């Protein structure tokens, strides 16, 4: 060629043909497989709901007919309003409670902070319906303190609200606690040097600093309450809410198309909450400088004592709920024979064969934790640390955020509609342990994904580049460096999946087969049959298992940190 390439205009210069190494091809292939899995196990089931909602039972297209029918039924229509006002009430109670509790834990010098923190997190360890059973024992027809309600029935909105406040409290607390812990101590010192009174510091520093946490907590509590199925099923009486309506349509009347309609209506408020939260979080960036100094509260006897009193009151409430369930499981025959015995465990669970469902739950939780963690961490790694495929990565990022916005009932419904179709090649997993594990992992995907991404982002971006320059394949560096360094986060994801798999009910209630019945579903069925004792016993077993898992997690994490603190030590100056 007469003209050297260098002086050719850009458009004419020959493009470089890059040789892609098979390492990169492997990573890209894996990412593609992961993306496809998320499409099949998340997007396709949700899309099926959309399709079924505009079809009749025979599969013919009927447009919005199903929706019109739905809105023409007053009982169904009232569920929308019921669901919303109950969820709003729960949010209005839980978020302020959690905020004051978190404020006490971070801004006062009251004693026993660790104990209060542990107690506040216990509701996470139990299936949500345990709190409903407990409130029935306290205030139900034969309740220990029924007189306190003065004739108002616990079966209905009151019971749902109380149980939901209990179940959502730790979720709100954790979010707000994180927001308050991020506060920069220097702001408070600056305010103090300007002689700012406490209330003004609260309004000008604390609240603005925590506002995104508050918004997030509000959305989480609202979504949780709207989506939860176990509580209204157990304690709701004749009070209709959307989550139970889906169950009735699908399981009771086998009307999948009407179920799809209710599912879409249930999806709306949760999706809305998710979008609001997402928009708000987009503005949070760079609010806190990396050099923030943690806030150290000063001793203020009057303030500390009132905070302590508040925390004791909340902790007693939480312990009363958990305690009642445990107590119920150990007494002979409520309320006539209150002597202690193990008969609910021995007769009610073991001899009745229901204990199998507990082992099913253990198995399901174990598989979810192991395979879920591997998949979720692997995907996050491929997203953050490999090159190329920007479109696929964008799609996977989006898909990873979706489960947060999908109520478990809707996901479970999508799974039935999609996988129960005889024409689906994956029809074989219907009714197996596999579908329970997959749905659980997908249901709890988003939080785990964020944990993994955060841990990976903290690693040096050039590890992979350095490996390539040293001729070491990326997968070797993944196992030798990335995984060991991220082990605390990996364990955290595993524990999160395990505990949630033990307590989950909403998605799996549609998907279990007789031989794969889970513990939480067994509680529901026993409660329906009036076997409160064995139901409480099963709930207690779940709580005990979750506690064991959390202790194992804590010990393991401590061991790892001790073993690795040599390399975490600050530089010797």
């Amino acid at each position, binding site marked *: 060629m007469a003209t*050297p*390439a*260098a*002086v*050719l205009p*850009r458009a004419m*210069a*020959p*493009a*470089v*043909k*890059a*040789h*892609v*190494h098979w*390492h*990169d091809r492997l990573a890209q292939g894996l990412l593609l497989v992961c993306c496809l899995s998320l499409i099949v196990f998340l997007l396709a089931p949700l899309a099926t709901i959309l399709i079924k909602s505009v079809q009749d039972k025979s599969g013919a297209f009927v447009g919005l007919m199903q929706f019109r029918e739905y809105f023409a039924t007053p009982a169904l229509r009232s569920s929308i309003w019921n669901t919303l006002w109950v969820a709003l009430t729960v949010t209005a109670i839980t978020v302020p409670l959690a905020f004051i509790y978190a404020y006490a834990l971070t801004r006062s010098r009251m004693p026993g902070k660790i104990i209060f923190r542990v107690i506040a997190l216990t509701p996470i360890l139990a299936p949500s319906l345990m709190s409903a059973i407990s409130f029935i024992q306290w205030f139900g027809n034969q309740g220990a303190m029924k007189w306190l309600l003065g004739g108002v029935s616990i079966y209905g909105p009151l019971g749902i609200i109380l149980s939901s406040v209990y179940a959502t409290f730790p979720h709100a607390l954790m979010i707000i606690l994180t927001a308050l812990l991020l506060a920069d101590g220097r702001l408070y010192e600056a305010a103090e040097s300007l002689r700012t009174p406490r209330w003004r510091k609260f309004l000008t520093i604390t609240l603005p600093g925590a506002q995104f946490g508050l918004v997030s907590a509000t959305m989480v509590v609202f979504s949780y309450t709207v989506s939860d199925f176990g509580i209204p099923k157990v304690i709701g009486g004749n009070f209709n809410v959307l989550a139970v309506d889906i169950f009735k349509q699908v399981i009771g009347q086998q009307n999948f198309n009407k179920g799809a309609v209710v599912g879409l209506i249930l999806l709306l408020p949760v999706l809305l909450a998710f979008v609001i939260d997402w928009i708000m979080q987009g503005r949070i960036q760079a609010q806190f400088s990396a050099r923030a100094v943690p806030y150290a509260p000063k001793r203020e006897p009057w303030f500390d004592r009132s905070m302590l009193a508040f925390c004791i009151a909340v902790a007693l409430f939480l312990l009363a709920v958990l305690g009642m369930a445990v107590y119920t499981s150990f007494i002979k025959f409520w309320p006539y024979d209150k002597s202690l015995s193990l008969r609910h465990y021995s007769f009610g669970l073991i001899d009745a064969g229901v204990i199998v469902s507990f082992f099913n739950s253990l198995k399901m939780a174990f598989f979810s934790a192991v395979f879920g963690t591997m998949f979720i961490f692997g995907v996050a790694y491929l997203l953050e640390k490999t090159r190329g495929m920007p479109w696929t990565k964008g799609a996977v990022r989006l898909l990873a955020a979706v489960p947060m916005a999908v109520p478990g009932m809707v996901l479970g419904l999508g799974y039935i509609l999609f996988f129960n179709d005889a024409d689906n090649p994956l029809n074989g997993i219907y009714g197996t342990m596999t579908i329970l594990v997959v749905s659980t992992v997908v249901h709890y995907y988003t939080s785990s994904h964020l944990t993994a991404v955060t841990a990976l982002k903290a690693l*040096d*971006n*050039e*590890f992979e*580049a*350095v*490996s*390539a*320059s*040293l*001729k*070491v*394949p990326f997968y*070797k*560096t993944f196992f*030798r*460096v990335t995984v*060991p*360094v991220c082990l605390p986060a990996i364990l955290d994801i595993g524990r999160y999946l395990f505990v949630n798999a033990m307590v989950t009910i909403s998605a799996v209630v549609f998907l279990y087969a007789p031989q794969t019945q889970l513990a939480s579903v067994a509680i529901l069925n026993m409660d329906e049959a009036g076997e409160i004792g064995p139901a409480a016993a099963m709930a207690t077993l779940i709580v005990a298992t979750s506690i064991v898992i959390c202790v194992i997690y804590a010990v393991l994490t401590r061991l790892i940190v001790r073993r*690795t603190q*040599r*390399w*975490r*030590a*600050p*530089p*010797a*100056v």
Partner: protein
Amino acid sequence: MTAEATYLRLDGIHKSFGKFEALKDIALEVKRGELMVFLGPSGCGKTTLLRIVAGLESQDSGVIIQDGKDISGLPAIRRDYGIVFQSYALFPNLTIHDNVAYGLVNRRQGRAAIAARVQELLQLVGLPESGPKYPGQLSGGQQQRIAVARALASAPGLLLLDEPLSALDALERVRLRGEIRALQQRLSVTTVMVTHDQEEALSMADRVVVMHTGRIEQVGTPREIYGLPATPFVADFVGKINVLPAVAEGEGKFRVGTISLKSGCRDIAAGTAVKLYLRPEEIVVNANGAASGNTLAATIGKIEFLGAFCMVGITLDAAGAPSLVANVPRQTVDATPLEHGQSITVSLPPAALRVLG
């Protein structure tokens, strides 16, 4: 085959990120065994160019020849280089020994051979005892040296340094730049370094490539870059400089306001608008007849004491003449004190006046 003088050749390198053109038609030759520095402000494309040489980014077009082989399309893992990043990217969970040995392990050498090589490298960077420690237990400067040792472990033909010193404090930085330069010369490994710090570039490089908005402005030795800047950008970016807008009068003369200055530059047509560049240390203050020409009356403005020299503001008395800054050595100021408002004569040596478009 005799070793060619050119070890690395880049030709016609283009790179765009969306609509942003990061690199435009880069052509460059790096000689065997030399230390070449890419210098420029952030966003000038120097790091992108280094990453393209490393195969960590791919150019849209253009050719890269390393040691006679076309590596334009090769993935990073098949190229021959060692690299040190600003963050060092040492593996935190591996000991220093394992970090340095990381690339040696899969070369099927014996354990003893690897251990010996690692020890040799640790000796080379002056940290022979650090093998069993973890990166977190070393200071920033020590980590940096370990990163260099790891990059050199497999004796690559090319060493790439991406802002290797910018995470260190000022003292450590000055010490380490001497050490790295000495090491590089001892091993005579061809090295490309990226920095935004001109002092670092001038003190370490055999040759400097000054880059600006994705283009090469000038390639030259540090002395050439400083003394004979090829473009206004280089003159401005490297070191401090006085700028005087002027109009050429022909015969090497230039009009600045109402005064006429002589310069060594004769081949500019009369009437052309140009700019004259003059380093502050070239201005001779209190020139008493013996000076080299362009002697003018002036008034002293602000004086800043900076240790080795004083930075002196000077206003030429002629109408329309710009203000200048002169660096006067401390001894000169001590001998004949300068004061604000004092009338003096200054000389702007014709040979030191650089004329650029």
